[in-house]
């Protein structure tokens, strides 16, 4: 199963895509993904139920979050009530160690995203803060990467022995599925996604978009 693990909808302040249009686009353009995870900036979307939309289009639609730490932005998968009580998702100065520990304690997984990017990526902060404890997975393919950002991310992952995921970081409809992650089994829930990530049996993909 192939999931785009990093997408934003109009729930994010800079997101411009309606979830229904992501679904429509994936099917109309035959994008080679089976679903996506909505990782809204600095929040978890407790309200939306995308299961009817997912069923209508035969896609898996899951929810996560993208939070902000001193090492840059971090995707969080497996968000639950306990995790939301453990730290303030709106805080733009979270400690990465705190996020990772809270995820471990509450059955979630933290994944630094676009780590090769200046300012908001983890690699840019290693010299100042050192190698953070507890990171096991990073996003090595990001659909919004420019220049050498993905290479920097992959190099860091290779050096530190991190596994890599891929995500489009889509903010507009037509960017969904540019990068994704392939898992060996089916994933239908946030819990199954966490188990699959913890199972370490996945690989990051770049997906060519056909005209």
């Amino acid at each position, binding site marked *: 199963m192939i999931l785009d693990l990093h997408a934003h909808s109009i729930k994010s302040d*800079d997101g*411009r*895509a*309606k979830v229904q*249009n992501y679904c*429509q*686009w994936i099917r*109309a*353009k035959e994008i080679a993904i089976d679903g996506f995870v909505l990782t809204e900036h600095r929040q978890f979307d407790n309200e939306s139920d995308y299961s009817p939309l997912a069923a209508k289009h035969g896609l898996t639609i899951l929810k996560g979050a993208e939070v902000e730490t001193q090492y840059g932005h971090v995707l969080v998968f497996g968000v639950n009530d306990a995790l939301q009580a453990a730290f303030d998702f709106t805080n733009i100065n979270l400690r990465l160690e705190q996020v990772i520990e809270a995820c471990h304690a509450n059955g979630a997984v933290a994944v630094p995203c676009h780590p090769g990017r200046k300012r908001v990526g983890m690699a840019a902060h290693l010299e100042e803060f050192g190698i953070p404890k507890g990171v096991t997975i990073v996003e090595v393919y990001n659909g*919004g990467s*420019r*220049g050498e950002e993905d290479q920097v991310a992959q190099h860091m992952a290779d050096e530190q022995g991190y596994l890599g995921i891929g995500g489009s970081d889509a*903010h*507009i*409809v*037509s*960017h969904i599925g540019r990068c994704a992650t392939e898992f060996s089994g089916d994933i239908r829930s946030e819990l199954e996604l966490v188990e699959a990530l913890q199972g370490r049996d996945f690989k990051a993909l770049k997906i060519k978009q056909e*005209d």
Partner: protein
Amino acid sequence: MSINHLSEVEFGVELPTFQPDTSLANVKKFAIAAGWNSPRFTDHEAARKEGLPGALIPGIMSQGFLSAMIHNWAPGAEIRLVDTIFRAPCVVDERYHINGVVTDIDEESGEVEIDLTVTNDAQETRVFGTAKVMIAN
């Protein structure tokens, strides 16, 4: 192909790519007309002294290019909104490609939503956004 009626618009259709004139002479003309005659838009050397990669294309000029692309495609369209997110600067005298694709059609109201991207030759997205346009039935 020019679009004149909503019935001609299909979900997922790509607008013809538009390559804007980003020459220093053209940007200077725009900057003067807009009252934004700052060296950061009209003088590469002065812009570099400010720590910029070169003279920048003003954001409102980029939005103008996006509007021009839409009107090249649908001359009679009424542009209600051009909503842009600037991810990286667009530098004067560099080549950019403006693309648009239809991502939503409201058959009742006639409103069409278009994804917009400005990319460079390396296919890096510098600006993205959406436009909402009204096209007559």
